[in-house]
């Protein structure tokens, strides 16, 4: 670069002779000579932001790809079907036992009631048979005694004797009917009472089964709640891993777990 330079006395600034015109030229200095001199002096003064950042820029860009790759490689570790199976296995024994503890005494009560009914009805049947025999026999004896009495008094076959015998027979039959009616009532009462006992127990069992294993009841609620809890844990674990991975690589490792990512956040 051949040119002549000096300080322009009019401006106090540098100027140079423009080889094209042969004249002193302010702009030739500023547009041609000075930029070349600046380069020769080791810098243009127009260092770009990208130049300043240098490798930092590549590291910044790496943050984007790193997070994307990390999230792809670490999907949400949660499968609802699997979570439900796990929760079912977890809660089923408990609720089965709770139900069993409740049902077993009631089932025994039902069985006992059936036995009681059979036994009481049997007893009443026995009393019925026995009572019927006794009363029939007593009536028969009373009729025979009446006939013998009238025969001894020579009234056998008389109208009085027939009337008396008829009355004795009727009384005997009424007593027997009354007895049998009472037996029937007892039988019915026994049957009804035991049936009621069994019915109540059966209802309790049914209600309990419904409360525990019915749709949307205790067992399913526990399972569903557990499934949601597993989902929350998976979301927190994924978030925690992402933050830790990014922090360790591009900033600082986590010194403490953020409260919203605590796995047992009560």
């Amino acid at each position, binding site marked *: 670069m051949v040119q002549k*330079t000096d*300080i322009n006395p009019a401006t106090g600034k*540098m100027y140079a002779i423009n080889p094209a015109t042969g004249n002193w030229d302010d702009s030739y200095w500023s547009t041609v*000579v*000075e930029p070349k*001199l*600046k380069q*020769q*002096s*080791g*810098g*243009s*003064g*127009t*260092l*770009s*932001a*990208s130049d*300043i*950042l240098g490798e*930092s*820029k590549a590291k*910044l*860009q790496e*943050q*984007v790809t790193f*997070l*994307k790759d990390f999230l792809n490689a670490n999907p949400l570790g949660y499968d609802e079907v699997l979570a*439900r199976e796990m929760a079912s296995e977890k809660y089923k024994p408990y609720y089965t036992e709770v139900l069993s503890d409740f049902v077993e005494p009631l089932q025994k009560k039902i069985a006992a009631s059936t036995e009681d009914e059979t036994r009481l009805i049997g007893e009443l049947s026995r009393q019925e048979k026995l009572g019927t025999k006794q009363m029939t026999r007593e009536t028969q004896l009373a009729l025979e005694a009446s006939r013998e009495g009238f025969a001894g008094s020579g009234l056998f076959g008389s109208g009085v004797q027939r009337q008396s015998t008829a009355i004795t027979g009727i009384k005997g039959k009424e007593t027997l009917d009354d007895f049998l009616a009472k037996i029937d009532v007892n039988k019915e009462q026994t049957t009804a009472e035991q049936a009621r006992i069994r019915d109540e127990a059966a209802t309790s069992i049914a209600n309990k089964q419904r409360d525990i294993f*019915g*749709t*949307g*009841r205790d067992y*399913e*609620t526990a399972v*569903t*709640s557990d*499934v*949601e*809890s597993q*989902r*929350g844990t998976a*979301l*927190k674990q*994924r*978030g925690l891993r*992402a*933050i830790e991975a*990014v*922090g360790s690589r*591009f*900033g600082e490792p986590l010194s403490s777990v*953020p409260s*919203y*990512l605590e796995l047992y956040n009560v």
Partner: protein
Amino acid sequence: MYNMAQQITIPENITAARENASALAGVAGDYSAKSYSIEDELKKVVQEALDYNKDVIDMRSSAMADYFAAPAAAESRYGTKTFETGDQAGQANKNYIFNPFERNAVIADYVKNEEVPFLTSNTLLGMREGTVADTVKAGTNAFQAKVAAAAAEAKAANDAYANLLSEFTQTEQLQQGRESLDIQRTNAGRGSSVAPADQNAQLVASLQSVQQRAAKIVADKGYITQEEMQQLWATETPLLQNLGIDAGTINQYINTTLSADEVVAQAPPTAGQKIAASPIGQFVSKNPSPTVYAGNAIKDFIGTNVQRGASVVQNLLNKFK
């Protein structure tokens, strides 16, 4: 005869130094001007490098939408006993919860869980912004260091140019003085008389030579001794004698001019003590640098004695007439 109007050619090394100083001043100026906008430029480039955090912001937006929709979604998920529409229409909902209190508790869990991706995205975004701030700060600091380095380099180049120019100027002045002396000597040898004005100019040049050399010594050491000052005057003795000033007058003149304690000193701190006690102590207190002080003192001294010298010469010339 020496022609004062003769064109002086600046040596190439000085021209090169001037160009270099100018170029580096331009570089420093560019850096300085850019230092005001570099932070914004860095932020922009950093954000571009991160694609303006689009990935995290998208993730955050999606998570936020899910979070906003969470209460209604949870109510439907846990409050529907049998599906009425969709693929599972007519089927029982396995997620149905009969107990409204427990259902509300699970709904709350669901909504809280939906908040996790949103908060995670927020944290990741915050970490990104932290990185941006750190990177911009580091970049800005690096650029400021460049600015300072360029300014220092420009100043050094300018000082080098100034020194070269000063040296050249002094050498040139000395040369001019000697050439003038040669002319005077030649004229004297021819028996021609020297005009009083020329004599006066020569005396002034001689005194300025003493001034410059004394200033150089002061600049180098910070002080000048009486002996050194006498040596400087001694070099000018031939000129003074050539002008017709006898040795006695010269010695008297030298002794007179050197009698001021405030001008010369043996060595610091004696110089400082003398200076402090001298009539120009006020001046010293305002100019604590010995170089500056001594330089100014020499300048004052010479300025005064140039006039005195001129009057001495004039008196001598008058005497010879």
